[in-house]
């Protein structure tokens, strides 16, 4: 698979490394060139400096041939915008987007944008741990 990851934070870098190890072609985009230090030294994918919410930048990342696009920057709105560009303009088959704000995540999920709210996932996990459920 050809995967583009926007945002090279802890999650982005780790996911990039895992996907690459399991045999995928990975491209990571981040505004800050310093962010790429989080990638392992033996990372063989592409690292591009730029704004992933910009159609021109996404073209440079060869989004036309991408099978999946994952938006993982710190900004909910930036993630949502980039994910919509990937999905509605470039017709990428699999688009996943991180949205911290549960309300916003709900609305965009209803609109058909595949998304995850770490806030909801983590709170649920912690509740289960505290209450002793599995």
């Amino acid at each position: 698979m050809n995967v583009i990851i926007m945002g090279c934070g802890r999650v982005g870098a780790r996911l990039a490394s895992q996907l690459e190890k399991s045999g995928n072609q990975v491209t990571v985009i981040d505004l800050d060139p310093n962010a790429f230090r989080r990638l392992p030294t033996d990372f063989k994918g592409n690292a591009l400096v730029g704004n992933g919410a910009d159609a021109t930048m996404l073209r440079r990342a060869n989004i036309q041939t991408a099978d999946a696009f994952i938006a993982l920057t710190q900004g909910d709105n930036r993630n949502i915008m980039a994910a919509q560009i990937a999905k509605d303009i470039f017709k990428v088959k699999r688009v996943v987007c991180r949205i911290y704000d549960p309300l916003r995540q709900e609305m965009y999920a209803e609109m058909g944008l595949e998304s995850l709210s770490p806030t909801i996932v983590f709170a649920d996990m912690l509740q289960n741990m505290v209450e002793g459920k599995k």
Partner: protein
Amino acid sequence: MYIIIVGGGRVGYYLAKALLEEGHEVLIVEKSAAVCDVINDDLGSVCIRGDGCEASLLTQIGTARADIFVAVTGDDEDNLISCQVAKRKFKVPRTIARVRNPRNEGLFRVLGIDVAISATNLILEQIAEEVPTHPLVHLHAIRDKGLEIVDLKINTGSPVIGKTVKDVKMPEKTLLLLLIRKAQQPIIPDGNTTLAADDQVIALVDPNLEADLRKAFRGG
């Protein structure tokens, strides 16, 4: 009308001021407390502090009964998302977003925003209009019909000089609406009108074929 403006910067401030003077009900949503205070001192209590993308705040300020929702923050992402929330969740009939990156203008329309305005593009068009040799200037877009009205100047050397309108090869569906000639009453041209240097023509054209029209009048 009830108009919500997200972003209390210069654009938001002066827009609110103009709309208030026209008697509209206006509310500004602004993130910065300091900016909120200044606006409330100047314009009366019309500014609420908060995030214009957050559904809970938008519920609180009665977005569902808003007639127009305008997002003019300095951030394209924020403008897009707040307009989408207003449109999808609160069914606001008209959403208008400011676009910083001119390339996002078309994109915002595809993503459901009713009107996307790029200040950069507006300024570029204004400047182009002031350049005397510029052959084609946009006057008005009729977006829902896929048409636009343009102003064409026939410069010296243009291949259309001396030709009648029916002999000029123009893109499909192009209509010449008005011919303005120096020191004369403007006329509505027909197929037999002969074009001359320094004529100004107002035309209706399909925006996708605009380049062909420009070529026909400029030559080359």
